[in-house]
């Protein structure tokens, strides 16, 4: 493992800016690392070595020409395969998009390019971001660098594993119910879900439009903040994008890194204490709470009574939206087409294409959602879930009247063995028990490593009010300054 692959993004950017390492050297080091370990980890679905080296050369040329470089210029980044990349395969982990090369870049990908980052390739994910283990990828599971027999979380297991395996210093994820934070927690990395509308969804292949939030993944809180700053902010092509500047998350991360949380009030959600979480996770969480207290934070308990209904509400809203969002995958204009032999009707071809192209979890959710939106059932299911969503948002608002941020374990359990939960969807859904309320509310949440349980990482989640993303970075950076970062065993 080259020294360059163990550096943080901030360090790499400084090396490149100072001429101590070229962007090409940095990129090549990461491509070498991918070549060395990814057959075991399987974090990537597509590595774009040529494109990455070309982007790196461009950065080096700009530096040689004396141009000012941005704070992440020359830093490699891995992009979850849920974002469109012009001319570069985008599959969303699904057979139905196998071979599709989008004609356009997602806004976030555009911004990554503009920032001078170097896109290494596209990372593995549960098909259409539906899953919590990356086992539902149509292209095989990603493995957790901490234990290759365990899952790396999901849906963004590829991005998290790429960080933990030192294949990339930065990665992009998307979080609909926890798909950035939960993989971050179980791989010992940092994952931040920005405020809904704080990062553009243009070019993010939709799972659940009202919940999907792209965001940064990194190995340190500061790196996550730097990436957040680079990709965030208003996008006129996304009508749900918030027309306000990104909160100063980088300054907040630097402030937190001083290790002082004096005057900060943090709330522990009563409804999350104990229920569902395994003892090892709870023990590490309690130690982290003690650490936060020592850093000067005031800890109080806050009740959010409707959080109990978050999971069932989520599993009506997300499938409902997905049943409509995924209707466009019909073999007519792009991607897979099955059964077009000149004899079959259009409807048959559409049907065969979807039958062959979607995996079991995607079909399950399309069916749940189709049912929940049906005439006569809408009010009882989708309508009722929307009411619950409002109540959960009110819980958050009430809580934030008392505290600056809420904290909880990110996940109820550490990385589980591959295959352990695929036979029971509900057991899989429980992985997102603590992360889902934030998505329903639309606020930001971050997972930061806080310790190990039986040698496996545990994450602490910080949840903040909408457009107060800076607060969670401050708390997360303070905890990180006290507990340090966590390195998996050598691969």
């Amino acid at each position, binding site marked *: 493992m080259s020294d360059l692959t163990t550096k943080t993004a901030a360090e790499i950017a400084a090396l490149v800016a100072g001429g101590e390492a070229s962007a090409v050297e940095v990129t090549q080091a990461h491509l070498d690392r991918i070549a060395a370990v990814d057959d075991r980890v399987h974090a990537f679905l597509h590595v774009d070595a040529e494109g990455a080296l070309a982007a790196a050369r461009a950065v080096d040329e700009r530096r040689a020409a004396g141009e000012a470089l941005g704070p992440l210029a020359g830093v490699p980044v891995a992009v979850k395969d849920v974002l469109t990349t012009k001319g570069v395969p985008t599959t969303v982990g699904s057979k139905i998009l196998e071979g599709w090369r*989008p004609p356009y870049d997602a806004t976030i990908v555009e911004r990554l390019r503009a920032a001078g980052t170097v896109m290494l390739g596209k990372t593995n994910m549960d098909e259409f971001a539906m899953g919590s283990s990356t086992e539902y990828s149509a292209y095989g599971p990603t493995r957790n660098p901490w234990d290759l027999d365990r899952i790396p979380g999901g849906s963004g297991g590829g991005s998290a594993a790429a960080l933990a395996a030192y294949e990339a210093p930065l990665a992009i994820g998307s979080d609909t119910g926890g798909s950035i934070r939960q993989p971050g927690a179980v791989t010992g990395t940092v994952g931040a879900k920005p405020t809904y509308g704080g990062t553009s969804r243009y*070019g993010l292949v939709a799972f*659940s439009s009202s919940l999907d939030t792209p965001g940064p993944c990194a190995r340190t809180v500061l790196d996550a903040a730097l990436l957040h700053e680079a990709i965030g902010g208003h996008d006129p*092509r996304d*009508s*749900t994008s918030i027309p306000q500047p990104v909160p100063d998350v980088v300054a907040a991360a630097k402030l937190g890194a001083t290790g002082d949380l004096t005057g900060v009030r943090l709330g522990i959600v009563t409804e999350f204490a104990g229920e569902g979480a395994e003892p090892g996770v709870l023990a590490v969480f309690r130690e982290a709470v003690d650490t936060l207290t020592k850093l000067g934070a005031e800890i109080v308990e806050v009740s959010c009574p409707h959080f109990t209904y978050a999971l069932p509400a989520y599993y009506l809203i997300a499938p409902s939206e997905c*049943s409509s969002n995924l*209707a466009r995958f019909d073999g007519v204009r792009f991607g897979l087409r099955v059964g077009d032999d000149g004899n079959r009707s259009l409807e048959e071809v559409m049907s065969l294409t979807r039958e062959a192209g979607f995996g079991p979890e995607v079909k399950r959710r399309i069916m749940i959602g189709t049912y929940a939106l049906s*005439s006569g059932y*809408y009010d009882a299911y989708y309508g009722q879930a929307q009411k619950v969503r409002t109540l959960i948002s009110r819980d958050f608002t009430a809580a934030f009247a008392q505290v600056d941020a809420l904290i909880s374990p990110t996940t109820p359990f550490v990385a589980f063995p591959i295959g352990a939960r695929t036979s029971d969807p509900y057991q899989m859904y429980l992985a997102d028990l603590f992360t889902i309320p934030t998505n329903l509310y639309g606020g930001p949440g971050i997972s930061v490593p806080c310790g190990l349980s039986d040698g496996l990482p545990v994450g602490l989640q910080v949840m903040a009010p909408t457009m107060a993303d800076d607060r969670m970075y401050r708390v997360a950076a303070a905890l990180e300054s006290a507990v340090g970062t966590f390195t998996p065993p050598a691969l």
Partner: protein
Amino acid sequence: MTTTLPSYDDVVARYEPVIGLETHVELGTRTKMFCGCPTDFGGEPNTRVCPVCLGLPGSLPVANKAAVEATIRIGLALNCSIAQWCRFARKNYFYPDMPKNFQISQYDEPLCVDGYLDVEVNGETVRIGIERVHLEEDTGKTLHVGGATGRIHGATESLVDYNRAGIPLVEIVTKPIPGAGALAPEVARAYVTELRDVIRSLGVSDVRMEEGSLRCDVNTSLNLPGEEWGTRTETKNVNSLRSVERAVRSEMLRQASVLDAGGRITQETRHFHEDTGDTTPGRSKETATDYRYFPEPDLVPLAPDPAWVAELKAALPELPRLRRRRLQQEWGLSDLDMQSVVNAGAVELIEATVAAGASPAAARKWWLGELSRRANETGVELADIGATPAQVAELQSLVDAGKLTDKLARTVLEGVVAGEGSPTEVMTNRNLEVVSDTGALTAAVDEAIAANPDIAEKVRSGKVAAAGALVGAVMKSTRGQADAKSVRELILERLGVQG
């Protein structure tokens, strides 16, 4: 089943029709509803498309403000209330010309509700209730090739053109219209005509039925007097004003024959056939399609600022019906005369001609006379005849100045319509101006007298009526470009006879 249709008079004597109209209007915005693609009609297939209107994965819609504004103006012109807060909704169904397999439309929260439009039928004002006006996106167009019928059944290939996909579409739905009786077909036609004129006056669409920028579905049902309304059918493919009228009539006759035979009306979509004038069944709505409507999560709610709506309302143009009233008064026309102006589609043309300086009588004479005749002969719209109101006004001014006679003016107009230039240019180039130069005219008169000494002698001896032959000779030699009255006076003067 072949049944002899009952007579129309018989049907309306025994049944009461209830009609309703759903009209789709393509807005003439520069760009599409949810992306920046151009909306111009025509173009090579699939050249006016982008990731958004093709529904590519990852793309997102952004609502076109100009389309929202146009819809609100239509709503205001139809006396609707404008929602202070409303949302788009997804209408989910699979069809290849619909890129996303859902249409972004509006469902239970339309932008405009509860208005009316007054129309005139046989001199009576009929108030048509407007249920709602909402905004949605158009679909693409599917072309089925290789089959005999051009329909999907039997076709070997289906080609889709997405140029039209995403063009803003306004749907205007009337409340049910009972009580029209025998006049139901005319009421339907009058409504669509008036609606078209209102929308045209707003300048938000070219509302051309033949190009599909105004499309109309006609709902019809029959019931016995005093009984509940009957089951309705929805007739599509109604592509002209005349067809609106014919479709209602044909559906009334068909339904009456079914009911007379003890049958039941099936709630279904029917297709109108321009050639035969009757309707055939389309897809049955018995098993109602479940569109699984839900609020569009990719778009923020629309919340038109009431102050902005008030501004739009204040800036509405004078609506066609009021304008017609005013013009009728200004032009001093009878109801019947005004009706013929309206029917000829000449209101705007006459108004513009008057504005360019012609008298209302003269303007009306040209547009309803010579120009209407030519339009009918060549089968073009009066507005597209090739003469502009300014040219017609100029032509009349030449007549008024004595430079053209009526007959000459018609010849000049022919040249104008043929594209030979302005009336003055045509008159000059074709050398058609009335000969008013007295020297030239006197020479022509003297020539005629010299050439016809016998006739001249008769006139001198008091047979003044004989002068007509000399006038004819002069007119001939001046190729009709002299004013006959002046010629006659000059002849008598030269012959020393008192007129």
